[in-house]
């Protein structure tokens, strides 16, 4: 894999100030994006956030209104440059596979190797890589959805592109296949040493696949960071609630500490050092697993206790939505010890020792805590999420 050893440019892709407008909609709004050589960058966002448009701008299938793009250190778009897609050395895997229906698997993979004398060898190599060594003579319609998508990946990799772009490649497959293929494709891309940009609206996919995750909303990139940082130190309230489940709890903060109704928490990240000397109001991010759920003794609930409104079983854990007498609602995670909690039960909450982030309170943010956005958990199965009567 010479592409890895060669002392190449610092970035596989470098985009600066990208902007693209469709009619009244600013689909891509001042986006900067860097992809390191060999890195897998996932772009996560709700549908319609502009993530696919960013891919198409990088691929050259669409032209930005403003901004520049460099691929492998070469200017391909902006500032006078406009390299057509066929000369960008970019591979792309599409949502609906888009194999050439009239060509065999072998000819699909070899399509981009027309002038390559080692075409045969390279195709065989890729068939091995995608674990379909004997499928070369089959036609696309004879393959299952998962096999088709693996062939599409091989086809994109065949000409050894500087970067591979994947546009929600697994969204039309069923859940089990998706999980398996996710692992396969990551291995394949690793083995090929290719840099990749992977667009998805599925946070599991984004967090498990990405070396770094870029979170997009309404045409803007809100945060680019390794997955654990995106989860642990979200840059904006949107990121906090879109990636995983988050409660935004009112508090006051100063000098790296915040005071909330659950006590004092240590702050990290951007907001932690701010407000030296002065106390400010803000919203503190508290994850469900930050809480300990304690069964309240029977009898009249005391003033500090919470009632269980809803339950959501994710397969590995149980989340409860609980409400305080003053109406505040939170999502909390219960350990296995308290599995038998029922809707309506009273519980006490205790905050574990945590480090988290705070967002300065501005008028725009909701006054109470937010429930997890439905988008965030849309993919997880629910059980008995009956509302309290």
């Amino acid at each position, binding site marked *: 894999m010479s592409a890895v050893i060669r002392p190449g440019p610092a970035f596989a892709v470098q985009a600066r100030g990208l902007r693209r407008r469709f009619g009244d909609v600013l689909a891509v709004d001042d986006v900067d994006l860097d992809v390191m050589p060999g890195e897998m960058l996932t772009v996560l966002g709700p549908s319609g956030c502009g993530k696919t448009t960013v891919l198409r701008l990088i691929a050259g299938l669409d032209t930005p209104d403003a901004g520049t793009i460099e691929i492998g250190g070469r200017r391909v778009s902006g500032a006078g440059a406009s390299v057509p897609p066929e000369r960008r050395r*970019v591979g792309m895997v599409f*949502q609906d*596979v*888009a194999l*050439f229906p009239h060509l065999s698997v072998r000819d699909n993979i070899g*399509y981009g190797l027309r002038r390559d004398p080692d075409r045969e060898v390279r195709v065989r190599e890729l068939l091995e890589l995608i674990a379909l060594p004997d499928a070369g003579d089959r036609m696309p319609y*004879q393959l299952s959805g998962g096999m088709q998508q693996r062939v599409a990946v091989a086809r994109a990799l065949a000409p050894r592109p500087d970067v591979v772009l994947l546009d929600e490649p697994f969204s039309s497959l069923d859940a089990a*296949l998706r999980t398996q293929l996710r692992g396969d494709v990551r291995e394949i891309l690793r083995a090929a040493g290719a840099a990749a940009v992977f667009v998805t609206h599925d946070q599991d996919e984004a967090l498990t696949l990405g070396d770094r995750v870029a979170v997009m909303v309404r045409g803007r990139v809100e945060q680019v960071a390794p997955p654990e940082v995106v989860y642990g130190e979200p840059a904006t309230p949107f990121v906090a609630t879109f990636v995983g489940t988050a409660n935004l709890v009112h508090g006051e903060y100063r000098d790296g500490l915040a005071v909330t109704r659950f006590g004092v928490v240590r702050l990290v990240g951007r907001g932690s050092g701010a407000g030296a000397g002065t106390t400010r109001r803000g919203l503190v991010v508290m994850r469900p697993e930050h809480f300990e759920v304690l069964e309240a003794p029977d009898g009249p609930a005391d003033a500090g206790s919470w009632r269980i409104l809803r339950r959501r079983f994710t397969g590995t854990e149980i989340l409860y939505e609980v409400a305080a007498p003053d109406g505040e609602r939170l999502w909390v995670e219960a350990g296995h010890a308290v599995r038998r909690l029922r809707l309506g039960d009273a519980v006490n909450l205790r905050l574990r020792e945590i480090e988290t982030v705070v967002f300065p309170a501005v008028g725009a943010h909701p006054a109470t805590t937010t429930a997890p956005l439905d988008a965030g958990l849309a993919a997880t199965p629910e059980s008995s999420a009956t509302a309290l009567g």
Partner: protein
Amino acid sequence: MSGVVSRRPPRFGPRGSPTRTAVRDTDRRAPWPLAVAALIIAFLALLPLVYLVIRAFGAEASAAAFLLRPRTFGVVAGTLGLGLLVGAGSIGLGVPIAWLTTRTDLPGRPMWAVLTAIPLAIPSYVVGFAFLAFFGPRGALQGLLAPLGVERLPSIGGLFGAALVLTLVSFPYVSIATRAAILRTDPAVEESARLLGDSRLAVFRRVTLPVLVPAIAAGALLAILYALSDFGAVSLLQFDSLSRAIYLQYGASFDRSLAAILALVLVVITLALTWGEGRLRDRAGTYASRARRPPTTVALGRWRWPAVAFLTVVVGLALVVPVGTIAWWLVRGLAQGEPLRLVVDVALNSFLVGGIAAVASVALALVVALLAARYPSRLATLVESSTYAGYALPGIVVALAMVFLATRTLPIVYQTLVLLVAVYAVRFMPQAIGGLRAGLGQAGRGLEEAGRSLGDGPVRAFARLTLPALRPAFVAAGALVFLTVVKELPLALLLAPIGFDTLATEIWDAATSGFYARAAAPAALLLVLSVGTVAVLLRFEDATR
């Protein structure tokens, strides 16, 4: 329009096992009355073919010599030549039209798409008549040019005239099939090719065109089939293709076996083409992708007006010339006191035959559709294929076979309306089967099961729930058969009782005798009905979607 039952190759799952495990009623046996009725219908559909084979083999030994005569050979060669010209012509018109109306910023795109589909519904002999009456030696064009001293125009008959007319009525087979193929191709297929290093031109050559080839070829084969089976246009334009030769042989000779032999030659050619068309259509089906985006369009730029000019010429020849010419002769005829009363009688005859045939045809189709949709089995496939095979036979062949059969075995029905209506009902049944099958698929067995869970017996549930749910499909199917029967020529010509004229035979009689003004009124009526056919077909598509 012809077609055969298409069977898709099975799709395989990850481990090579069939992924389709949808519950089918393969274990259910059709009730015997249904099975017997369907078998009888299949037998009736194949009757002309079977009889023709028997008849041809019963011919004198001189038959083989007849087949090898240079004139026979010349007719076959001429027929194939006509097919090739029409095939090439319909590709030449249909593919650019499909591309312009799907992938470009052509002004008035939806309008052109509709206008270029209408010619398919106009009977070939109406366009043929209009061309004779316009471009012919003493046609409207000569009338317009007469002040310039033009006494007579060269004949437009023969191979060229027939090929032109047949191309103009059959190119929509290609444009419609190609449009459909373009619309179900994911734009990402072309984008992938770009990203793999191809220029726009290379992508067109290596991907766009090859992906469309099966659809284009299937459409062209349908156009060729149309040309080979056509009787009306070739007869009016006096080109000796097989179907005209069959008609002449039938009329002129005492040994009608010779006509049967020519008919069998035509049958072999058309059935082979039908088979090929089915294969190509299946292939085109496997090329369809799960496209979610509309096709990307190209800006025509300075090619905009040449493109509009091209479409204007095509629509001008295929629609404006026939409509204009017929209107011109109609006005002239009325001015000269041509009686309209006659047209009313003829139209009522046509509507009577069409109406009864439509009702009978839908009833027969319901039997086949029920069997095919509810009790899929080898028997059902056999029955359905038989009806389509009967449908694929050229009209003149069916007409001839039924004349033989009736005069030999049941002379009492020969040249009666009973025979004519019965033949129509069986022949055009496949037009109704498709829609009824789709309707039955939508109404589903679940509907009846719901009825039965609420206390109805099986027959009662079918009558109370399924039949009413099928009403739109019945209406559309009946309308389609009605319009087809009204436009049909060769069967009416050979099987209608003496003195019983229909719109089609009236046009044919008048046009062959050169009374253009007399043919104009029935032709105008058929033009209106043709547009009605298109409207019904479009509604049919909506209803079955």
